[in-house]
């Protein structure tokens, strides 16, 4: 099960890889990282249909913002699950994300337990 994380902070990769160490080791999860919206679209577009089952994206990024990326992904891959992770937990961002088709909305600092539950639910659902 491949999951893509999009964030302009590069240390996010080290953080998530460690958080999901066990799941990665057991082959349960496969993580990929993109550091901008543009890069995320390149990764997703490399295979058609993409192997990824879930995209988690930061909102506040230079260039394409997370919300723009969300719209882009939803238009190109309507079935792709996308959730937003943002430092700005305001209702304006939340409403915009949900109305654009986001599955969930996580605020930073990330509650990993909630995140793991969200991912675990994928297995049960599929």
């Amino acid at each position, binding site marked *: 099960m491949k999951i893509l994380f999009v964030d302009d902070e590069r*240390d996010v990769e*080290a*953080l998530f890889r*460690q958080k999901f160490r066990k799941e990665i080791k057991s082959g349960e999860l496969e993580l990929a990282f993109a550091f901008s919206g543009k890069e995320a679209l390149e990764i997703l577009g490399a295979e058609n249909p993409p192997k990824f089952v879930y995209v988690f994206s930061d909102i506040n990024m230079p*260039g*394409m*913002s997370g919300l723009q990326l969300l719209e882009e992904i939803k238009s190109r891959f309507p079935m792709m699950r996308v959730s937003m992770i943002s*430092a700005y937990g305001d209702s304006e961002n939340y409403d915009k994300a949900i109305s654009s088709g986001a599955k969930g909305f996580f605020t930073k600092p990330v509650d990993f337990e909630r995140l793991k539950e969200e991912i675990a639910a994928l297995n049960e659902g599929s």
Partner: protein
Amino acid sequence: MKGHRGFQMRLSRRVGFLAAFFNLLTVLVSPAQTAEGLTSELRKFENSPGFESDTTYLNKANELGFLLAESNPDSSLVFLNSTILLCREASYKKGEAEALKIYGNALQNTGDFKGSIEHYNTALAIASEIPGEKQVPGILNNIGLVNYYLGNHTQALNNFYDAIKRADLTNNANVKAAAINNVAMIYFEQGKLTEAKEKYRETLAIYQAINNPGRVILAYNNIGDVELRQNNPLEALNTLKIGYRAALELKSPEFIEMTSRTLADIYSALDSLDKAEALFRESISMSRENGYGVPQAHSLIGLADLYYKKGKLAEASGFAKEGLQQAESMAQPMLIRNANELLSRIYEEEGNFAEALQSFKLFKLFNDSINTSQAQRLTASLEAEYEFSKRELEYEKASLRQKWIIFSTIAGLIAFLIILFVGNQNKNRLNKAYHALQEKTAEIEIKNEKLEKALDQLKATQVQLIHAEKMASLGELTAGIAHEIQNPLNFVTNFSELGSDMVQELREERARKPEEQDQSLQDEILADIQVNLDKINHHGKRADSIVKGMLQHSRTSSGEKLPTDINALANEYLRLSFHGLRAKDKTFSADFHTDLDPNLPKAEIVAQDISRVLINLFNNAFYACANAEFRKENPDVKPMVELSTKLVGDTDRRQIQITVSDNGPGIPSAIADKVFQPFFTTKPSGQGTGLGLSLSYDIVKAHGGELKLKSKPGELTTFTIFLPV
């Protein structure tokens, strides 16, 4: 009836102080001396032969005569007559005129007005023969007073006006003021109170100018009296308090008596009966002691009125009778009239109607004789004014001869002056030029002061504006700063939690049997813990530097230049600007790109100043390419801000070049040279101070560098900073 009586009472009192008034004139001319002192001085003279024709002796005799005429008018006549004769024998005209005048005073004091006026006229005739005619105004004034007493108001006014005119010609301020005072007195009697007060104020001004404390008191007394008559007792009280205090200071019984009498009238009008009584008693006892007959009569009648008001009829009757007797002996018709009016009321209340009727008849008699109608008095004063204007013309004619003499003297003087003037013309011209120069210098100095002041104000305003601009840009930064701190803090939290998890995992692993332990896993966990600790350290420092930068930005510049890593500084503020704008505007979307020269040397700069330049340039760049309006009009343009640094120039003059570009609309060449001007802004009002670029320009200049603008409208805008290494 009551008010009318009061009016008459005050009038009569006025006559009282006038009597004291004209006599004082002479006293003040020579130093005041006692009769005893003068008598013994005269005795000494009489030992030397020919003393009778010594003018010093004759002057002294006149001084003594003056005092005697006041204190013992009847018995003074013999002495005065002998002085007249001595002066006549010695052909001492001035002395003779003076002696005749004093004789007139004495007769006036005895009530012989006809004889008084005859002597004054003789004195006047002699005084008119003496060149300078210095005695004339004083004699005219005294004649006017007698005419006034006789009820010849027209003649009296003529005399007073003459006296004023002559006093003006001879520069005799004392007599001028005395005559004005007497004119005021007539205004007062006519009920022209405003004019009367004005005239009294004129006398006050004259007496203050010539520093005559006694007459100043008199003027205050008269002004207060008018104010009381104008039904303004409180104002009168204030005026009289000044006069009374001054009289006490001067220790003059005459003025103390006068002011206490007027004060008593004022307190009586204010119904402060106890205060009024004390003052009336003071006036009576002083009058008795010094022989002021008329004032004594006035105050006795005033006191009687007070007792009448209190309902003590017996005392009232006693004082009224005493006052009436005194008034009769002084031949004061108005006081007699007032006393009779008061007595008729007292008798009436006592039930003594026969006496009441008798008093009332007397009152009526005097009232009718005094009160020639208001119309008659007005006619009299109008006649006087007409006469006066006619006589003024006559004076002008009379003084024509004198004027001729003066004119020829002046003509000679002018001729002399012309010679002098021609001689001094050059000097004058130089003086003039010098003065003009001085004026110019003074003018320039004043202008300089003004300019310096304006400059100071401008400097103060500039400091305030710079502060405001700094605070404004700090405000713009706040949101960016919050985000920039939040991110590293999140990492610190996350990596430290991870660290704990891993330590736990490691413990679990080591709790296994040695043969089951996975050594490579343990190594891996340890390595991860190390990485996490490094990350925590890194992000902690990152937050730290942001806070430090923020503090530095808001702090007043110390002006100290320190070696600074330009790349780090520019990168930090680029991010702050981006996140700040992003936080403020949710729809904000832009990209940025950096091209930093890794071999850039450190630059000696004031970091907080240069950081303000950078934040300004970044904010402007993002605003230009990513504002909502521009994006709506140009949907295909992807907003992009580029930062690059580079080392440029020759080896001996190397510079750091920092460029900030955006792909916004560009700056039209028409306004390109205005952007560095203070207060120039293209933002909607209220959104920009218009100082950002202007201050940036100044800051870069202050670093010995340059700030340049290059723009291609429709394509890009580039600001370039050059800083010396």
